[in-house]
Every structure is written in C-alpha cells, then in structure tokens.
C-alpha cells in the first residue's frame, strides 16, 4: 500500500498525505482538548491512577473473554458446517433434515444476540433441570455459538453453492455417495471460497463475547462496570476498550492481508 503511493509520482503525494493527516487528526484532537468540559472528561475517562487500579481486575476478566472466544471459535465452525451440510443434502428423503436446517438458520438469525443471551442465560438455569448445567457462562457461550453458527452456516452454504454443479456431477460419476462427494470434492472448495468471509465473522465474534456481561459474568466489561459503580470513574471502560482493540486490530489487519493474498492467488490461478 505505502509503496504504491510513494512510487506513483515521486514524493509529492506522500508529503500531501502526511500534511493532510496531521491537519485532520491534529484538528480533531484540538477540538476535543479545547472543549469546555475536557478537564473533567479527562479525569473521568483517562485518569492514570484509576487506570492502574482498574487494570488488574479488567485484565482478569478479559482472560475469560479470551477463553470464551477460543471455545466459540472451536464450536461455531463445527455446528455451522453441520447445519450447512444438512441444508445442502439433496433428494426427497432428506426433506426433514433440510427443513430443520432452514428453521434453525431463520430463527436463530432472527433473534437479536443480546436477547438470546438473556433468554438462555437466565431462562434455562431457572428451569432447574438437573441434567443441564446451570452455569450462566455455559449458557452465554451456548447462545453465542448458536447465533453465530446460524450466520456462519449461511456463509458456508454460499461457498457450497459457488462450487460449480459439474464438480458434484464428476464426483458422483466416480461412484461416490452424496456424502462422500460433499466431503471430498465440494466442501474443501467451498470452505476455501469463504475463508475471508469467515475471518470477518471471527473479528465481530471477538467483540460480541462481551455481550455475556449482561448475565453478570465477570468478564472484562462486567469488571469495568463494577469498578465504575464503586468509584464513579469511567477509566475502567477505557481499559477494557484498549484490551479489545489490542486483539481486534491485529486480527483485522491479518484478515485484510490474508484476503488480499487470497485474491491475488486466485486471479493468478485463473490465467
């Protein structure tokens, strides 16, 4: 990126870019710090002492966010793939299976994630069914997994649909069963088709893990909230924000880089 605009017309475009960046961000900063209430806001949100005091608890909570993020990253691709495959099976015998998959994706995509978290997180434990775990964290994770799996299943399905019909024909022509054709011929291509889209989902999942804080689970946002209600200082939220950014910015950069590389690789493979 950088190389490209430096080479274009010598150094001029670079100079313009640097100057306009300084003017823009400098202006914005100036606007904020000269606002009448800035000293109070600075104290409320950017207080170094509060930062130091809040950081350990918020960091502890963030470790839970990361664990839940990790678990959902393992569970979602599996559940979603299952749903996508169910929906891709052909023939009248599989109609109930397809119907089930359609209902699943329609319903789960139709419920706001925050409601699903509340319903499962408070509702299921209230049933007091002995066989089911009653941990709010478990149900929060379940809500996250179910909702994201519905979206991810649709991504997989678009990838499956993008594989030419002729690929399925030639797999079946070898005598492979419908399942084998999917497993060996279609799915590997389908998954490759949608890796960039899947990675974008990962970026948004990483942040949505914070939604389970409404169940009172002491993850980063909840810990920040607790600190705020004790001290009436909001710096703890800034701590949490920085922690999320520390993960999501590198992740986003990586996704962009990967997507671009994939695009280039594909356009070369075409020739």
């Amino acid at each position, binding site marked *: 990126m950088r190389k490209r605009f430096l080479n274009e017309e010598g150094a001029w475009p670079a100079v313009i870019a640097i100057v306009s960046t300084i003017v823009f961000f400098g202006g914005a900063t100036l606007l904020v710090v000269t606002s009448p209430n800035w000293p109070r806001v600075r104290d409320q949100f950017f207080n170094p002492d509060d930062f130091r005091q809040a950081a350990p608890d918020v960091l502890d909570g963030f470790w839970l966010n990361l664990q839940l993020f990790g678990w959902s990253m393992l569970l979602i691709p599996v559940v979603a793939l299952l749903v996508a495959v169910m929906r891709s099976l052909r023939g009248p015998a599989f109609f109930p299976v397809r119907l089930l998959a359609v209902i699943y994706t329609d319903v789960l995509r139709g419920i706001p994630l925050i409601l699903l978290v509340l319903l499962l997180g408070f509702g299921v434990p209230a049933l007091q069914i002995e066989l089911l775990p009653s941990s709010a964290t478990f149900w929060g994770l379940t809500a996250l997994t179910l909702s994201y799996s519905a979206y991810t299943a649709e991504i997989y399905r678009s990838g499956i649909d993008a594989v030419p019909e*002729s*690929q399925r024909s030639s797999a*079946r022509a*070898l*005598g492979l069963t419908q399942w084998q054709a999917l497993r060996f*011929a279609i799915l590997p291509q389908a998954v490759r088709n949608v890796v960039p889209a899947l990675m974008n989902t990962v970026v948004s999942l990483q942040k949505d893990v914070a939604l389970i804080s409404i169940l009172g689970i002491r993850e980063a946002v909840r810990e920040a909230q607790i600190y705020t209600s004790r001290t009436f200082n909001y710096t703890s939220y800034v701590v949490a924000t920085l922690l999320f950014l520390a993960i999501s910015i590198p992740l986003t950069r990586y996704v962009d880089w990967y997507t671009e590389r994939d695009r280039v690789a594909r356009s070369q493979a075409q020739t």
Partner: protein
Amino acid sequence: MTLELDGVHKAYGDRPVLNGIDLTVEDHEVVCLIGPSGCGKSTLLRCVDLLDSIDAGEIRLDGETISAKGVDANAIRRRIGIVFQSYNLFPHMTVLDNVTLGPRRALGMARDEAEARAMEMLGRFGLGDHADSYPNRISGGQNQRAAIVRALIGDPEILLLDEVTSALDPELVGEVLSAIRDLAAGGMTMVLATHEMGFARDVADRVCFLHEGRVLESAPPATLFTDPQHERTAQFLARVVEAGRL
C-alpha cells in the same frame, strides 16, 4: 456387456430434450453420437450414468434395468466411466489424488494399491511427470487425459465421452484423440458425443445422428457420411463440410 436404451424421454422443465431414444451398444463397440448443439447428446450420456433421471423409457445395462427406482445408482456408476467436456478435475487435488479418489473411496481400494495403479495408468497416458501437479498448472489436454484416466481407473465396462475435445485449444485436440484411439484399439466399449467428424469416421463402428431428441439415423461411418438416408442428416453434414470439419 450391452447397453440398451429403449424409448428414453427426458425434459428439463417443459423443454423436451430426449424424445424417445432407442439405441443399443454392443460389447467392444464404439458408437459416436453426432448432431447439432442441443440435440440431446450430452443429456443422453448424463442419463446413462444416472446423473440425470429419465421421465419415460428404460435404460438397461447387461439386461438389468438401471433406470428403475430403487437401483443402487452408486453401484451402477462404478461400472460406467464418464469424461466431460470441461474435464472437471477437482482443482484442490493433485492429478494423482483426482485419479485415486474413486478407487479409494468408492471401491475401498488401499491407498498404495490405488496409487500404484494410478501411476501405471498415468504413465501410459503420458502424464507420469504430472502426477503431483494441480489441474490449473497443466494444459487442457493434460487435464482431459487425466480425466480419462480418472474415469478408467475403476475398470468400467463402458466409457462415455461427452465432447471431450470441444473445450481444448486446437493444438491440444490431437493428443486427446490419440488417447481415445488407443482405447478403441484396445477394445474399450465407448459412446462418444463429438463434433470431430473426421475422428468419428476413423474410430467409430457406428455413427448415430441425433435430431430433436431422437436417433434419426444410425449406420457405420462409411455409410452415414457418404450416403445419409435422411434429409436432416445430409443438411447437417453439408454444414459440417462447409465449416471445414469433415
């Protein structure tokens, strides 16, 4: 081995494609299907391999009705090889993996055995050096020969070839045709849909002219190409000659 089609009808939606196909292919016979685009050649081959279902009529393989409901289509497909116009190799697999997928997964052959067999056949088709190449790294002709090996490795009783040279650059057509010629010489039973009339004349025991979903005329090439009985056949051949394809 005999393949018999008896009054086969097939429509896509309300567009009829096959309108009562009668055709018998004997053991070791090479039958070429010719005719204008859209006359049903490809559909006919797809129906024989049970990739499309038929609406009426019957297809029999060795007297067994394979177009009936409840037939194990996978078992039938293992007895039939098919090669498509656009090769359709799996792009995420090497040539060797493409070729061994069928034997390993559909026939349950051990990997070593399948690969040994595949290497021997790839060598025979001049692809020994390309076993580890991916399809997008080799030429169209090599792709198509690999597709032929993939169709043949399971020892099919009959091989169906659907305009296998139509997607190839002209200079690559020869290598694929000579591979098919070798198969014909080796006694392989084949049905070819083709636009290569010169090749059909060379290799076919019998040429069938398809028109509007029917076999309008069927005769040895020497007869059909020089003395067509039907006006439609004559018109078609005249156009082919005009285009310099015969």
